[in-house]
């Protein structure tokens, strides 16, 4: 019972925090900040305390009647990873926000929605029912929208509408999938679903495609990623950190649930996820390489990292009985990515906080003498590029192993290509982070020497430090999380427990090689092709601006054309009834206004006599009597009703009736 209450409380606490925080915030900002940190801290504490229990057995909670089918929550080890990392990151971000947001407006609103987003995100991870999951997913979309457009300038609003459009659209596609799923399965409970859909045939691919599309937009699967590079730079940094670190994971979570829990690791599905994973990985990395805005680089980086996770998800399905390694890799990377990406964003955030500028062309050389910042950022960098000794290395190595396993299993040329893409993408990661790091922290720029120090407060650096420690700790002790992850893999039906041996010579070698390749790319491509010197200044170019932009060149035109075509059609239909009446009216009017020429020769003798001039006479002859049909009709009607014609009518009617009666008379049958 107490565990259930605890479970409910981690769902409800943030929501209470949102409301209370808003009320408190109207009185005092300081108390509110403290309160928010307290709430997130308390939630974190509860979750952490639940660890023991979760390791033994999942906690389940069912509240009937909510939304008709009831609220069904479950916390097992698999979900625990998501939940814990979410709350952990949130806790740190809340702390970070108190510093970051100091000079922003609408702080109160921000915190409320920040907490609401936490509540709904936790809800997503806890939901045991697809419908509940969807509900929280949608709530999260809306609340996070407010975080994204916090700046309320034109750029933020544009990014926001992009995000919202994608979110709602994807949500609806997802909903379509759920409709079909429910229609075929008759239930939406995640545990019951696998049995329920066993025999539904190929429709399950349609269903999964729809659901994955829905979740994929959040997980920024190519080509649904368009909102990502816009939203991240627009949002305040803690929000971007959350977006990148956690919200992407909600999509990932949904995909895992769909592919592995509901569809039981279907081969085709897994393979397609794998393909998308590689596309994401490569495309994200490449785009990140081109960008100049730090946050956008990091956003594309998130996309690329999401690709890694997707690859892991795909591999789980492909590896079948050997899937344990892939599961470890996936879960580990989810965890790690959340941590180091948040770390990197926070670093970028501090720069922005001070300079209100994110383009590396402008902030070049800013961090040269900011040692603490530099170190923390560097830790993040090392983690993401997979430097041995940092957590990124652990998961990447596991992933790579899983990939080799799959290659070993299938012996396909495709896996060679996959291997190349994998290495190349990792090298890209190295290259684009180097691009940031070198230009911001290594290069010299006298503009920034020795100032702005006072801005960096402990409250902002503290979360980063914690994250940095976490990065290194996991990197050094890869087995630290293993208990949790082993437990989690039970959810996937893996029961053998094996410890990890990440640090082998091979793996380190691969890693180093990748890093070297990355450096080569950096030097050979980034510095050579992207860096131009204009007016004695080094400026990075972004060639991708001229490339085909999926959103600008495909989505918008298609939407616009569809929209205008259908609008035209519907406008026409809209006016159809009214217009047809008008049209008939007009027709009648124009018909009645029709000018009929009557070339009457008026034999007016008196006038003739008076006419002396011949020319005049000619003129007079040409007089054409025109009148409109309506006049004629009116006149005719007037004549008709005159006595003369009335008698005519009478005669005519009588004659007609006589004829009709006599002619059409039927002999009695």
């Amino acid at each position, binding site marked *: 019972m107490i565990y259930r209450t605890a479970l409910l409380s981690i769902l409800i606490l943030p929501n209470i925090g949102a409301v209370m925080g808003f009320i408190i915030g109207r009185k005092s900002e300081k108390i509110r900040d403290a309160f928010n940190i307290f709430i997130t801290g308390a939630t974190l504490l509860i979750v952490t305390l639940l660890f023991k229990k979760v390791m033994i057995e999942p906690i389940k909670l069912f509240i009937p009647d909510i939304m008709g089918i009831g609220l069904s929550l479950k916390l097992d080890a698999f979900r625990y990873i998501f939940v814990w990392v979410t709350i952990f990151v949130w806790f740190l971000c809340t702390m970070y926000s108190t510093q970051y947001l100091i000079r922003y407006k609408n702080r109160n609103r921000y915190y409320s929605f920040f907490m609401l987003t936490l509540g709904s995100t936790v809800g997503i991870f806890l939901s045991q029912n697809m419908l509940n999951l969807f509900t929280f997913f949608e709530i999260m979309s809306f609340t996070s929208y407010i975080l994204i457009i916090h700046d309320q300038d034109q750029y933020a609003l544009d990014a926001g*509408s992009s995000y919202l459009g994608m979110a709602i659209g994807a949500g609806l596609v997802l*909903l379509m999938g759920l409709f079909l799923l429910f229609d075929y399965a008759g239930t939406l409970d995640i545990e019951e679903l696998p049995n329920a859909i066993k025999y539904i045939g190929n429709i399950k691919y349609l269903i999964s495609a729809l659901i994955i599309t829905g979740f994929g937009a959040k997980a920024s699967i190519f080509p649904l990623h368009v909102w990502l590079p816009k939203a991240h730079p627009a949002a305040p940094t803690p929000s971007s950190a959350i977006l990148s670190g956690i919200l992407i994971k909600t999509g990932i979570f949904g995909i895992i649930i769909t592919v592995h829990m509901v569809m039981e690791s279907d081969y085709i599905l897994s393979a397609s996820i794998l393909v998308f994973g590689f596309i994401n990985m490569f495309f994200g990395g490449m785009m990140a390489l081109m960008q100049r805005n730090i946050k956008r680089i990091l956003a594309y980086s998130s996309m690329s990292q999401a690709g890694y996770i997707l690859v892991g998800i795909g591999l789980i399905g492909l590896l079948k009985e050997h899937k344990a390694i892939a599961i470890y890799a996936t879960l580990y990377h989810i965890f790690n990515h959340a941590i180091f990406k948040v770390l990197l964003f926070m670093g970028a955030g501090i720069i922005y906080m001070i300079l209100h500028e994110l383009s590396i062309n402008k902030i070049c050389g800013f961090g040269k003498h900011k040692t603490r910042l530099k170190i923390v950022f560097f830790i993040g960098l090392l983690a993401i590029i997979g430097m041995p000794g940092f957590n990124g290395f652990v998961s990447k190595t596991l992933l790579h192993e899983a990939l080799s396993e799959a290659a070993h299993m299938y012996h396909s040329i495709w896996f060679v290509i996959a291997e190349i893409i994998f290495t190349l993408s990792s090298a890209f990661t190295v290259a684009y982070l180097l691009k940031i790091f070198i230009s911001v922290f290594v290069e010299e720029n006298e503009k920034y020497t020795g100032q702005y120090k006072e801005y960096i407060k402990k409250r902002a650096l503290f979360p980063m430090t914690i994250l940095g420690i976490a990065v290194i700790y996991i990197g050094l002790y890869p087995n630290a999380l293993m208990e949790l992850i082993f437990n989690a893999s039970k959810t996937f039906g893996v029961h053998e427990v094996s410890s990890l041996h990440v640090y082998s010579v091979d793996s380190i070698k691969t890693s180093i090689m990748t890093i070297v390749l990355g450096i080569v790319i950096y030097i050979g491509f980034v510095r050579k092709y992207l860096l131009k010197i204009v007016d004695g200044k080094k400026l990075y170019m972004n060639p991708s601006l001229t490339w085909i932009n999926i959103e600008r060149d495909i989505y918008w035109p298609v939407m616009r054309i569809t929209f205008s075509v259908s609008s035209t059609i519907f406008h026409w239909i809209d006016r159809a009834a*009214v217009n047809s009446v008008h049209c008939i009216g007009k027709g009648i009017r124009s018909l009645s206004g029709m000018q009929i020429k009557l070339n009457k020769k008026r034999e007016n003798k008196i006038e003739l006599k008076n006419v002396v001039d011949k020319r005049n006479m000619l003129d007079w002859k040409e007089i054409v009597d025109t009148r409109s049909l309506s006049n004629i009709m009116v006149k005719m009607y007037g004549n008709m009703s005159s006595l003369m014609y009335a008698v005519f009518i009478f005669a005519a009617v009588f004659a007609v009736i006589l004829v009709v009666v006599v002619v059409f008379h039927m002999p009695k049958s």
Partner: protein
Amino acid sequence: MEISILFPIIFPFIMGILGFCLKFKREKNRNKFLYSSVVINLLFIVYIIRMDLPLKLHLIKINTFLDIYFRLDKLGVLFALLVSILWIFTTAYSIAYMNHEGKERQFFAFFIITLGITMGIAFSGNLFTLYIFYELLTLATFPLVIHTQSKEALYSGKKYLIYSFGGATLVLFGMILLFSITNNLSFIEHGILGATGLSNKNLLLMIYMVMFIGFGVKAAIVPFHSWLPAAMVAPTPVSALLHAVAVVKSGIFSLVRVTYFIFGSEVIREIHGNVYISVLVIITILLGSFLALHQENIKKRLAYSTISQLGYILLGIVLLNEESLIGGLLHLINHAVIKITLFFCAGSIYFMTQKKEINEIEAIGKNMPITMWCFSISAISLIGIPPTNAFVSKWYLALGGLSENKVIFPVILLLSAFLTAAYLMPIIVTAFFHTEENKDTRNLDPPLEMLVPIVILTCIVVLLGLFPNIVLSFIKEIVHEIV
């Protein structure tokens, strides 16, 4: 006491006329009078519901056809309760709002009478009675529509009249043909046709189409919808009533009656009536949402939105299976609550700031936070985002569509939901996030009489979404009996 079924119908008539004739010394007294009228009417309904169902009363029975016959069944109760509860809110709202528009005496007289007429529609026991009240509804709401009496209002009012009477004429036509076949027009679950009517399928199809379109005029079915956006010139409480409660929902209610109580779903399936209608309905849904995008006037946008939402309900009716009808009836309620809230909010904005266009309301969320919050919640609900109420109804509608094995219906629903988002979200975004510098920060939330209904209705929106089972189980009972 079968006569008691007449109370909620006749009482408002009396009160309406009384209210018109009495000269209240103070406005307060009049308000008390109005409040007590609507509340007592609700009590009447509760009272008759607590008696044994079903209640039957032949008021005037001249022959099988000319028979003023009232009957209480669950469907009628549902509609009556919905209407009379919402009427209380509307009364409170319009008491404050109409200060601003003037000519309250006339307004409230017709306002209260309309309640009685709508009750009559709810409790009608046969098509003829329904038809009478349907015509009366047009007549009683007409003065409300043209309340401002401007040229535009008159034009719209005329449009409203023409469309309504045209529709009623079609209904009459269908009724005559139907009566010639069945010799009976009473509402009976599963329809009155039984096996008798099936010999003449084409004729039956024609009758059904004619009646559907006839009643559909009030339910704003395309292409007979254009009175609805035009009727926007009316004062906001009236628009809210027209759109959310009385008029359009009466059309829908009548359609449920015709479809399930006159024809019966089996017969309609047999004559393929639903196939033809559903095409119209799909166009209705899409057209409403697309054209809403083009409207700059908030109320007009909401009006087009109503068209598409009514399309949902109609879809629920014509799909002819249990789930869809559950969805349809649930959406009847949900849309009523949501739309009335939206209209009230739009009305409050107009009331306080005289702003009607979307681009005028920039940053109004600062000045009217509560109003705009309620607006946002209702708007999100209308899109069909869980956990608000419209999601539940759309869920059932989609399932109903799927169980007909037609994927097109849920797709249409979702497309329309997306468009709904596209036309409602900009309002919210404009109101909250478009900042205008140097804005005054006065609190412009409307007076309590207007604010309280809005807030309560918003709570209902959310609560119905979170705990739909109370209503849902009742609707399921209804549906179970008639499908």
